[in-house]
């Protein structure tokens, strides 16, 4: 494995001829129409260090085995289609560069965990979106302004982080609590609730705080940080969850801060 061959043509990336490697991918396959259980299958592909795992999957699908099934669309980390477990961690295949993996070893690829496996790398996303819908992820405001609502730069900044979510489910399906009990709302739903709870224009924060104060809500989070490490958008997920917890304890959204004792609120 990993024999090195200098290939004339570059991978299209500037910088002249670069080395291609043979990379072994071991993919957890499952075809509901024939398999009773998932199984692992090996594929060898020629890759450039600058290629992404998605390119490797495409190469397999297009050149070796057309039945390999996965979701993908944008190919640059903004649509959230291709969250999968790569070497044991949730990643977007299109944002995971081969050079960032240890290619002296095979690369393990499998579906994200905790959602029903449908086929190969595809899981049923419905339970995930179900939790998302449950937290009322939309602006609740009664006024009808003629122009835009006024919001200061600072007010806009406090919920900036959580507006970046692309609903890829990498976080929720990395959460140990979610694996064992899918009833937990999961980090993605909380992130999207956070986005509205701390939006100065929103009037529904209390409702959402109540929803998340539920048995399956924020209190189930055990601060394992898998979600924060998995998020391809770099959202500080656990921090957002902490801020929601603190808001519930305070009894009002206020400014997002989890400081209850150590620094004065809003400082």
């Amino acid at each position, binding site marked *: 494995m990993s024999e090195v061959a200098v290939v004339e043509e570059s991978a299209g990336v500037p910088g002249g001829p670069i080395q291609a490697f043979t990379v072994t991918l071991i993919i957890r396959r499952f075809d509901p129409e024939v398999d009773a259980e998932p199984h692992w299958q090996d594929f060898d592909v020629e890759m450039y260090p600058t290629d992404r795992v998605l390119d490797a999957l495409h190469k397999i699908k297009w050149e070796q085995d057309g039945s390999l099934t996965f979701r993908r669309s944008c190919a640059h980390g903004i649509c959230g289609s291709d969250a999968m477990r790569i070497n044991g961690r949730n990643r977007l295949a299109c944002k995971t560069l081969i050079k960032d993996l240890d290619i002296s070893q095979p690369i393990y690829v499998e579906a994200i965990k905790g959602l029903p*496996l449908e086929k190969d790398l595809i899981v049923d996303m419905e*339970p995930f979106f179900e939790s998302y819908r449950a937290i009322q992820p939309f602006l609740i405001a009664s006024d009808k302004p003629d122009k835009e609502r006024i919001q200061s730069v600072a007010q806009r900044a406090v919920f900036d982080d959580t507006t970046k979510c692309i609903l890829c489910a990498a976080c929720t399906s990395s959460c140990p609590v979610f694996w064992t009990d*899918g*009833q937990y709302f999961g980090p993605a739903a909380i992130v999207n609730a956070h986005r509205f709870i701390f939006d100065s224009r929103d009037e529904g924060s209390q409702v959402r705080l109540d929803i998340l*104060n539920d048995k399956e809500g924020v209190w189930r989070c055990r601060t394992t940080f898998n979600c924060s490490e998995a998020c391809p958008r770099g959202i500080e997920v656990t921090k957002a969850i902490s801020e929601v917890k603190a808001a519930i304890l305070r009894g009002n959204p206020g400014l997002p801060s989890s400081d209850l004792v150590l620094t004065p609120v809003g400082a």
Partner: protein
Amino acid sequence: MTTIDAPRTPHTPVTKNRRVNWEKWGWLYMRASGILLVVLIFGHLFVNLFLGTGVKQVDFAFVAGKWASPFWQVWDVLMLWLALIHGGNGMRTIINDYAHGRPRQVMLGLVFAAVAILIVLGTLTLVAFDPCPTGADPSLLPSFCPASSK
């Protein structure tokens, strides 16, 4: 290892009954009791296992000696309650994570029963403690007992 990850039931909508929210208070309790327990447990461990001859010094007389003082009685009662409820609530969390349906109910019941019984038992032991039980072997009693042979 080879089985498919079990399908998840979709989230069931929030039950809208306005009971006391145990989850929130449970969560807070874990933290508050945790901080107190650090002091209580480490104090306990320090006195019992570190000072003097460590675990070797612990016997009836040692315990009785400690509990003769209301300070240690309060200390240990507090520790008992806080720790059992803390641990019990922690176990509840864990059971909720891994068990479902009937097994979950049974296990929760067991934990609750264990915690309740031990709190009662432990409190009785402590509060109604007699450091100098009559008829006991005098050599085992603490030195301040009239019957003590120490």
